[in-house]
């Protein structure tokens, strides 16, 4: 059926009625809600009272200008548009919901559907509600990249489970006849690459057409310029030495707390011997090697 006028309001506030019993002497009565004089309809003995003339309201106190007569429940007050002290939103909020201000949630929040956040989430931490039961993403709904200024704990929460660094880059290998300084070889190509995962460094080095002219033949052949100094642990690596005189199999070697490496020959029943400059052909020798070692950083 059609109607004339404004559509009915759909607010979820209740109209409140307070009832009192007069005793012929009491002029002040306490209302259940704070209000103002013109926001209540006051009826005594079923006679509507004139606001400000017959009564006034301040906060929750209704004060008559003269005491209403005695009677049981002979005074009632209807709050017209009562002030709402607490608004409880409906338990089922459907449709779009736009919040332009801040939302502070002190209790638990259960979201069973999807949530779309286009802005930033300002939070000190986001924690699962229980320990070790939730995944971040699933096989079919993965995140792309993860940016962390710190590290990540894997498989445990101790310092030994903490992975704090990944880095890859290049370094410049220099062949020299001393551990520091010294005479250096010329090379057609000298390529060095590294990948650092936590404190573990994987090192690749390729030296092409080593020319040892000007170097001291009896000195150890060093490769200077490692990207990270080793820690106190020594390390060995695989090495392919082309056109270099060997008496046994060769391995690469990084000593403790060093930023250089060199090569050793494993000779049966003989102490290890370092590859020297004179073991290298004067030109055309190549070295390809790979190492894994630990660093302090």
């Amino acid at each position, binding site marked *: 059926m059609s109607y004339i006028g404004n559509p009915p309001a759909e607010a979820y506030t209740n109209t409140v009625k307070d009832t009192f019993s007069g005793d012929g002497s009491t002029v002040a009565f306490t209302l259940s809600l704070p209000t103002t004089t013109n926001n209540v309809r006051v009826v005594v003995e079923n006679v509507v009272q004139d606001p400000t003339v017959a009564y006034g309201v301040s906060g929750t106190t209704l004060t008559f200008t003269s005491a209403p007569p005695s009677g049981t429940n002979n005074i009632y007050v209807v709050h017209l548009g009562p002030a709402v002290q607490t608004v409880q939103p409906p338990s089922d909020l459907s449709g779009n919901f736009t919040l332009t201000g801040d939302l502070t949630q002190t209790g638990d929040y259960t979201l069973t559907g999807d949530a779309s956040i286009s802005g930033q989430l300002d939070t000190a931490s986001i924690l699962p509600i229980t320990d070790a039961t939730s995944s971040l993403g699933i096989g079919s709904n993965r995140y792309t990249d993860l940016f962390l200024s710190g590290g990540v704990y894997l498989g445990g929460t101790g310092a030994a489970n903490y992975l704090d660094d990944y*880095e*890859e*880059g*290049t*370094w*410049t290998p220099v062949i020299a006849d001393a*551990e*520091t*300084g010294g005479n250096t070889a010329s090379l057609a190509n000298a390529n060095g690459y*590294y990948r650092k995962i936590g404190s573990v460094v994987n090192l690749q080095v390729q030296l092409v057409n080593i020319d040892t002219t000007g170097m001291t033949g009896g000195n150890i052949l060093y490769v200077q*310029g*490692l*990207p*990270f*100094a080793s*820690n*106190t642990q*020594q390390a060995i690596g695989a090495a392919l030495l082309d056109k270099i005189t060997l008496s046994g199999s060769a391995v690469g*070697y990084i*000593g*403790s*707390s*060093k*930023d250089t490496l060199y090569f*050793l020959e494993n000779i049966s029943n003989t*102490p*290890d011997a*370092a590859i020297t400059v004179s073991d290298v052909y004067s030109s055309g020798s190549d070295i390809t090697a790979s190492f894994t070692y630990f*660093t*302090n*950083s």
Partner: protein
Amino acid sequence: MALTERTIEDKIEVVGDFKHVQVRTATVIERDGVEISRSFHRHVLAPGDDVSGESTEVQAICAAVHTDEIKAAYAAHLAAQAENGV
């Protein structure tokens, strides 16, 4: 659209008992001022190394940490390893 390249020493670390100074040089490629690429090159300076070709900042750090005491200790460390045959 302007592409620019610049290199910076974006990380300088002092590590280990002998105060090795690890220097990371970043090559940064920017398009109109927005970084689109960053690659790293590294080298290490041990006590006693020639640092004359380093930046003033690295030289200052090396001067501070590579004291005569540290240099002597590192030289002794190298000599000890050489005596051990490795």
